[in-house]
């Protein structure tokens, strides 16, 4: 099976590419893209958030059978060392991460929000970003999103 990840077609080993395999595990265990994290397995925490045709999607509950022909973007391609995404700059300016585990998912969720809504209100940010961060980086990430908006 072939899926389209970060701008390139990627082959998945046929014997493991069960159409029910969640995208999260295809990314992590078959393609070695470990920036996307496992948190709950039921789409409840957002640690596994990626972009699917530009929309935020929780990859732990998206089977690869539903990804064929669609564009997947992960944290590894949100920006680059030379040209980081404005949110990545804002994240550093506000020193958001603590343990850092949920930050990929948060950045992807926030980037999808800003792509649709250039100037979200606080209420719109709160409604759109419902990822879990156990370190409690919420006040800083809210400020970072506002500064990048």
């Amino acid at each position, binding site marked *: 099976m072939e899926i389209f990840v970060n701008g390139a077609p990627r082959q998945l080993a046929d014997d*493991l590419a069960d159409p029910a395999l969640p995208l999260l595990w295809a990314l992590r*265990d078959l393609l*070695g893209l470990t920036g996307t994290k496992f948190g709950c397995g039921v789409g409840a925490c957002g640690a596994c958030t990626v972009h699917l045709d530009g929309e935020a999607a929780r990859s732990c509950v998206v089977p690869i059978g539903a990804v064929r022909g669609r564009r997947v973007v992960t944290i*590894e391609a949100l920006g680059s060392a030379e040209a980081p995404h404005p949110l990545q700059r804002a994240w550093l300016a506000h*020193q958001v991460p603590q343990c*850092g585990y949920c930050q990929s998912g948060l950045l992807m969720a926030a980037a999808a929000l800003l792509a649709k809504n250039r100037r979200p209100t606080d209420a719109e*940010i709160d409604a759109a970003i419902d990822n879990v961060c156990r370190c409690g980086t919420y006040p800083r990430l809210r400020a970072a999103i506002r500064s990048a908006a």
Partner: protein
Amino acid sequence: MKRRGLLVSGLGAGGALVVGWGLMPARERIGAVDALPVEAGEVGLNGWIKIGADGTVMLAMNRSEMGQGTHTALAMLVAEELDVALARVRLVRAGADRLYGNVATMVTGFPFYHPRETEPGHETTAAKAGQWVVAKIARELGINVTGGSSSVVDGWDVLRLAAATARARLIGAASIAWKQPAGELVVVDGVVSHPAGSSAHYGELARMAAATPTGDVRLKRREDWRLIGTAAPRIDAAAKCDGSARFGIDVRLPGLLYAAIRHCPMLGGSPGAVDVAPALALAGVERVVRLGPYGGSTAALAVVGRTWWHAQRGAAALRVEWQQRPAGGLNSDAVMAHLEERARTASSAGGGFAFHSRGDLARADAAAAQHVEQTYRAPYLAHATMEPINCTARVAGGKVEVWAPTQVPGLARAIAAEVAGVAEDAVTVHVTYLGGGFGRRLDVDFVGQAVRIAVETGGRPVQLIWSREEDLGHDFYRPAGVTILRAGLGADGLPQTLRITSAGDAITPRWIERGIPALAGPVDTPDKTTSEGLFDQIYAIPHQRIAHVATLSGVPVGYWRSVGHSHNAFFVESFIDELAHAAGRDPVDYRLALLADAPRHAAVLRLAAERAGWPGQGRSRPLAPGRVRGVALHECFGSIVAQVVEASIEGGRPRVHRVVCAADIGTVVNPGIVAQQIEGAVMFALSAALHGRIDIAGGVVRQINFPSYPVVRLAEAPLVETHLIDSTRSPGGVGEIGTPPLAPAFANALFALTGKRLRELPLRL
């Protein structure tokens, strides 16, 4: 039994060791170069510092980074004394040498002295002696623990002195080479120069420095610091914004297999008959491994697969006849009822272990004008670290390699050796970034499991990952507790007597049984964590008895961010608020009246109250309609924190809008990280105050994923302000100190709003 042997011989040889060790000065912990292996081009200068050929300063990093910022803070201490930019410090793996043990966490944890007995400059002889003995034992044991908010406390003198010593030798080398007095040499970002023109970077001087005597070493004067005290950006932040930071779960090795796990759903139970055929029939499933109880875990079955999803699907397909533990299924309701009965009996009979008593309670109680007695309760809680529990292991050729997000690499090494049947020096532990720890990763059950599975995989590495359901269902939980508080107030409304009787399981004896079995004694010694925050409560009350009844519920219990303080602060600071109201006094004024002899505590409370606009404290600020304030003050981990919470009820549910924190943490190494930690601790505590409870019925935990174990998300997150007292004392703890005051400050606000006193967590209107 090796560890116990060490301990006993250390004590037995006390007299001889006393002479050599003095009062455990930091210089005894700088260590020799052989503790820190060097690679080609590198030169070791002591047990902590080596220098690369390009002048890079390499620091042996013994503490785990789990979000608390300790890698940055400890690197700052070294960069400061060596006069290099923070970016020039590279962290390298600290090995298993006892040098890298944590002395501070044992010294503050084991002899339970009242903080006033250990106040710097005013220590009692008994406290000094007790701490000295524990420091010696801790040094001898060398247990490497990242916990107890102790990393900077422990590293403060040692790392600065190790770096200053290295610097003195580098300067000494330049002085000899250039025949110039050391006092005329200057260092700028690792380049030593003399006004006459000579110049060389550390890499060029290192080899000669290693052969140069240390000479006089002086730590920098506080006024010369250029890095300590600044909000330097975290050294781990960039990798945590682009997906490149490597957590335990991200370890990738050639031929890596993945393992999923199913514990017996009943805590302490085990698998009986197992039909593995449905699992092995699935594509991508390789094998099934039976796992006994490792490091205190419940027995389990693991399924090995080619991706974690395949393994997990196999685990779900196993048909197992689970067996209840022999003593019968655990029930949290029954535990709570038992705790209440034990607390009540002990309270009326003066029972339990008295961690603190003073004065003449019977006489003072008889003279009291008014008595207040209340019972408070707290539930079991899970840690729910964002990174699910995981460990990667490879067992091949008589060697074991472990990659683990752990707070205790030495204990991980010990259990790996035991499970694989090899000597400890055949085991290498690589500590990865931790996706949260909060105390959960002080246990090594998952390391034992991963190594056991790796024994079966023919030399191929295997990565064990627990699902979130397994994590929440098989944690080492924050113990439940019931506490009865009773005070007698004088005619002025101030308490003359205070009796506190708490009941709940002790953590430390259970943790030692699981993680360091050789140190477990035949009977439990009193565990300070049960009563911390109660026996050392901060207010001047002349007659006190603070006791705890240690129970054995059978529920696996562990250390949870701020440990005993996490619920004890709720009990005592809510109760003090009750007393203030019973006396008809303002809660801030009332507390200040009890802090006449505690100027540091009073200053912290005043600062929080002023910044929050508390009426009567500086410039009071009106609140938005429907909002109220509540206050709490607490001392823990060597630091003092006050919080003023601004709360309301929205849609019938309690809500926190703003939290103003003031803290005296002694010397501040990095105020940016301190603010981060306090914000995070507030959110952690708010999750517990609003939502947190683990219920157990028939041995099965009821809350097994985020929908049923809710935590605070962005929409519920308050604004947090942090104000720090300027101090020149040695640093106190940071990572846990923001957690304890939140629940009582919140509950006190809700009382001010509704007149209803909430005496049980989580807070329900």
